[in-house]
């Protein structure tokens, strides 16, 4: 019995240390984001005594992080839309049909990820300037879609593979055409997985900073805007900016963790 107690105590300690390891930076970012400048610079306190929203106010309105947030949200939403319009049918085809060159195609899709976005960014900028979409929302959306699409294709293909083909065939037998069977049966069954990959796409786009910085000047996304403004500001602004960046991702993961796990084919049940 004592052994059991020691064992559970050890588990608790180790789990606690791992959690602390990951949580400490987030806790300090949060505390510093709300700290008044006086408290932040006061060496006598590790944990600030006074808190304020003024950094948020300044970031959002003076440094136009508010505008950038809206752009970031639009870019992420449009990226999801575009990459799903292209990626979901491709993923479905890869999971359901046998055709020549299927494996090569899968590999090719994956191999587009071999080139870091940083290498692609400069040529992309030149092309975008030539066709006149540099420094536009759609420019970043196109770049982000390129970045996200391979993931969407491969993830959705494995999600569709997880939906038993018999469900679809039953729908064909009981009166639906192929396209209706997809929308009425396969899509609802694949929805949790698709939602998870949408969130994945959202976070990829939301966090992407390099291409967004290079492709835009006026219409910057939030990370690009923060990089060029908050990083040149006093330290507590950096923490505030970090907090703004982290919160949406955390909120999404909190609500989507069940789906995120299902994304990789493990079930929590």
């Amino acid at each position, binding site marked *: 019995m004592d052994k059991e107690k020691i064992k559970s105590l050890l588990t608790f300690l180790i789990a606690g240390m791992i959690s602390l390891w990951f949580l400490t930076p987030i806790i300090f970012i949060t505390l510093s984001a709300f700290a008044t400048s006086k408290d932040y610079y006061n060496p006598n306190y590790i944990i600030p005594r006074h808190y304020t929203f003024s950094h948020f106010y300044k970031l959002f309105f003076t440094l136009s992080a508010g505008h950038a947030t809206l752009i970031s949200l639009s870019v992420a939403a449009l990226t999801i839309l575009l990459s799903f319009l292209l990626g979901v049918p491709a993923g479905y085809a890869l999971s359901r049909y046998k055709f020549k060159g299927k494996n090569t195609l899968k590999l090719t899709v994956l191999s587009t990820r071999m080139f870091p976005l940083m290498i692609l960014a400069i040529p992309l900028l030149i092309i975008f300037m030539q066709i006149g979409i540099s420094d536009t929302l759609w420019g970043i959306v196109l770049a982000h879609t390129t970045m996200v699409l391979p993931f969407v294709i491969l993830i959705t293909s494995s999600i569709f593979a997880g939906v038993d083909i018999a469900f679809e065939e*039953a729908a064909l037998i*009981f*009166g639906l055409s192929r396209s209706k069977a997809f929308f009425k*049966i396969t899509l609802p069954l694949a929805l949790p997985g698709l939602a998870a990959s949408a969130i994945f796409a959202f976070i990829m786009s939301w966090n992407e900073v390099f291409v967004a910085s290079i492709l835009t000047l006026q219409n910057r996304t939030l990370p690009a805007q923060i990089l060029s403004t908050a990083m040149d500001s006093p330290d507590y602004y950096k923490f505030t900016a970090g907090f703004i960046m982290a919160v949406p991702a955390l909120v999404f993961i909190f609500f989507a963790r069940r789906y995120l796990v299902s994304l990789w084919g493990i079930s929590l049940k």
Partner: protein
Amino acid sequence: MVKVTLQEVTKRFGKTTAVNRISVEIEKGEFIVLLGPSGCGKTTLLRCISGLEKVTEGRILFNEGDVTNLPPKDRNISMVFQNYAVWPHLKVKDNIGFPLKIKKKPTQEIETKVKWASEMLGITELLDRYPHQLSGGQRQRVAVARAIVMEPEVLLMDEPLSNLDALLRVKMRSEIKKLQESLKVTTIYVTHDQVEAMTMGDRIAVLKDGKLQQIGGSNEIYHKPTNLFVAGFIGSPQMNFINVEVKEEENILIVATSGLEIPLPPAIPIKKSEYILGIRPEDIHIKELPNSTRVTGEIYFVEALRSDTVLHVNTDFGKLVVKIPGDFDAKEGENISLYIDNSKIHLFEKESELSIL
């Protein structure tokens, strides 16, 4: 109710031929079983009839109408899948009512029909549940209810009982058969289980390597198998096969091998000398009877099932499996006399494997 006619139906996947020129006429309201080992093409043939697979060659007719190139939804068929394929995101009543809803039937009619079908299957109290709240047996009933609710012209079943436990399988066997008799719907049932085939089918079509081996009632399939494969596939324990020669002695043809000589009935067309003798385990007896042939051997294994006893006996011409009704006290290693019923023997040509007796 329709008559289903298959004309030279062939299905190829690349270079492999899954279904090879199968022609069958299935009468209105008939219950036909497609029976064969795995990979024999029975499921592929069923899927061709359903329209889920396109046939490579040949035609499929429902009554006089050619449905060969119609999509499944236009064939007025329904199907029970091996893994049930009950949609997990729909309640039981929505699963059952789905085929009617698609056909845009009025809500009142859908409700009445769903009630009727669920009463037929005894699942009225499950209508508001989701499939994951059901047991395998209940899910299978939902699948059958969904298949009959639209009163299809042809009902297709793809090994519907294979995922159920043994007791439930026996129960569902009789229930499905009774249901089919009361609905009088033309039914095509795929199975690899000969007991299901024998007990349920009006006729049984035995398939092997995509080819139709024999089609007929259980009596015909069992007592008059057309070839070695059908003879060996149907019946448990399997029919005994013994390599023999056919000789003529004093104007009587006899089959012979070391330690065994059985006279043949007259007027058997004999051309070559090498044949395979087939005798079912239950046609070998331990008591002498008229027109029988005595053989001796040593008991080497006893399966005491109590309802009957299966003896494995080593003889001069190889192993014989004998099935005798009831309890029989036999010790392994004992010598025993056996009597082969001469009127029950089968004879197959060794080369073509076709039956000549």
